[in-house]
């Protein structure tokens, strides 16, 4: 009995020493070497692909953000600022409940199933809002024209992109709100539409932050 206890202890000790040795290799040396290479060769990307405009950081090209009006008194959810292109709904985003001295954004999805009543309602409301917001006096949007990404939340809640269809749908509204010709805004969207990588990887998309930065440049110039 004593023998087997001491054998077990000896074996556990060996396991622990093996773990510590491998922790040194894979948990200290490996990440440090990779960080060194990453910071040396790809400094901007390794630090979050930050985007600057007018001399200040306005976000990351990889992370979606909200383009809202400032909260009014008594308001709980902000309204979208319709002069800017809007991204996808972000119903899956959360805020942190642990280590609350920080105000962290919690990435995530809604995790609702296709037959979930609440999801059905969200999609209905989002669709109605997209149709209403993007219909101008001369240009009417039909519900059938609204693409799926405009009314669904992404997996991360931080999707930086929208489909080219959703960007096109917003052109008349953005042109109207900013007093720009529709053709000029259409051209802007075309310039910022990215096709599939090598023609077949991923899906065509428009980076909303890049598009809005270009729009603001256009507005300050004109």
């Amino acid at each position, binding site marked *: 009995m004593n023998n087997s206890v001491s054998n077990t202890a000896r074996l*556990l000790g060996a*396991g622990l020493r093996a773990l510590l040795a491998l922790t040194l290799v894979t948990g200290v040396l490996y990440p440090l070497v990779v960080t060194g290479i990453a910071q040396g060769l790809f400094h901007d990307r390794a630090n979050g692909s930050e985007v600057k405009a007018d001399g200040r950081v*306005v976000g990351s090209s990889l992370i979606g953000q909200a383009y809202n009006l400032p909260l009014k008194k008594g308001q709980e959810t902000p309204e979208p600022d319709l002069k800017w292109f809007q991204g996808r709904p972000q119903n899956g985003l959360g805020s942190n409940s642990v280590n609350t001295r920080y105000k962290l954004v*919690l990435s995530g999805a809604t995790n609702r199933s296709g037959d979930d009543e609440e999801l059905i309602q969200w999609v209905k409301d989002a669709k109605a809002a997209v149709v209403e917001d993007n219909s101008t006096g001369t240009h009417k949007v039909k519900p059938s024209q609204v693409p799926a990404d405009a009314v669904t939340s992404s997996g991360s809640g931080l999707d930086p992109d929208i489909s080219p269809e959703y960007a096109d749908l917003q052109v008349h509204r953005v042109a109207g709100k900013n007093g720009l010709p529709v053709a000029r805004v259409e051209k802007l969207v075309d310039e910022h539409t990215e096709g599939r990588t090598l023609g*077949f990887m991923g899906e065509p998309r428009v980076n909303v932050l890049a598009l809005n930065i270009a729009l603001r440049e256009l507005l300050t110039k004109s």
Partner: protein
Amino acid sequence: MGPVLAGVLQLLALVAALALAHRPLGDHMARVYSSDRHWRVEKWIYKGIGADPGTQMRWPAYLRGVLAFSAAGVLFLYLLQRLQGVLPGSLGFSSIDPDQAFNTAASFVSNTNWQSYYGEQAMGHVVQTAGLAVQNFVSAAVGMAVAVALVRGFMRSRSGELGNFWSDMVRGVTRILLPVAAIAAVVLVACGVIQNFSGIHEVGQFTGGPQQWNGGALASQEAIKELGTNGGGYFNANSAHPFENPSPFSNLFEIFLILVIPFSLTRTFGRMVGSPRQGYAILGTMATIWLGFTALMMWTEFAHPGPAFDLAGGAMEGKEVRLGVSTSSIWAVATTLTSTGAVNSFHSSFTGFGGGIQLLGMQLGEIAPGGVGSGLYGMLIMAVIAVFVAGLMVGRTPEYLGRKIGTREIKLAACYILITPALVLVLTAAAMALPTPGDSMTNSGAHGFSEILYAYSSGANNNGSAFAGLNADTQWFNTTIGLAMLLGRFLPMVFVLALAGSLAGQRPIPVTAGTLRTEKPLFTGLLVGAILIITGLTYFPALALGPLAEGLAA
């Protein structure tokens, strides 16, 4: 080009890349596990362990090594999380509660990477990089070591010797996982995956006001997370998060990393038993199931049955624009047919049938191609069962690779295939019967049941993905899923190693005209059939209550 065609082309590109890589990588792994030479760094590690890497172990000694090393892993990771609050370099994050720390330790040591925590608000740099990421390496290396021990069971005769656990495990890290992960990490940084040690910092926004973000060693962890079929995300959104998976190319590359070792190990197996064609028969079985599941998944996700998806005009809920429906489907199948569980889109928001395909993928035992190591040994167990079934049909004593499959061998294989279904079904039934676990469901009805069935299927099969609507951070789920992960990982290993020992003790029997030719396509067909029938019979009632009911109602 339409999205369906683009999806098919991406799948073909993936198949081509895997076909190119599997021979050189498989041969390399066969050399690694057959070599007599030790690298200098490995000698230092053996000296630290106090183990002689030349000692041959029989199966009980090999098993003791696996269990001692894994127990040390659980203990270390548990303590690291419990002490996070006082450790430097932890962003000032507080310590993890005991039940969640146990769950997470069990999860990462068992190669599951089930996460009942949100990465960005709970785990600081030290726990992520020196705790969780280390287990991503070593738990994968343990799986590969056990698979190699089983393969040696088919090679050795009348000795019962299966190799040396310490040497197999250490080499798996130093010569296979570490070099590939290092290259992959640099590729991922080039795509935009972050790699820094900055603390929580503010980043400006377009309309003003800052957001708070954590930095971290993501690329180095992301690489081994996929390569070792681990799947634990740095952030809550896992590989749907743009910092973990920024572009369509990084996405395909990460799917490749998930699949490359499990598929290549069939080549290693063929080389080691002296007949690459035996390896191809296993590879064919894995590829058939994988491609079939992928085709079904793409079909149901593009057809998107379900009221919310019909209304939206596509199944884009929980999916990213840059990745689209097609590669979300390809990823979802790759991650549930391996023991990975990383996600680039959220499984709970797949169609009813799509969720069913994910569940069935895990319930097959993750053998097509399966986790690193665990896929190969799981598939070889199924091959033993298939050979036995064939033997019953023609009335001959079954044999596989020159070894008799006798009473002892078939008992061990049967025990292996009974463990995980027992864990999944008993725990699901218990959670449904008790009054409180059901409070954790987000969705009601059939999908709510699926959330719980998914959680235990994922835990006991060491997958780690989730129908994440389930609030799993309760004492009940942390404890029961933690136990399911440990039992679902290590009990099967006991039977695999016992089987290996039994095979290695036999005298090989010569091939005759009456031998079942296990390297032929006919055997691949038999094996696919045996897998689908056994799993189907086991899980059909449970699947009928969950995803099938949801899918048929849509």
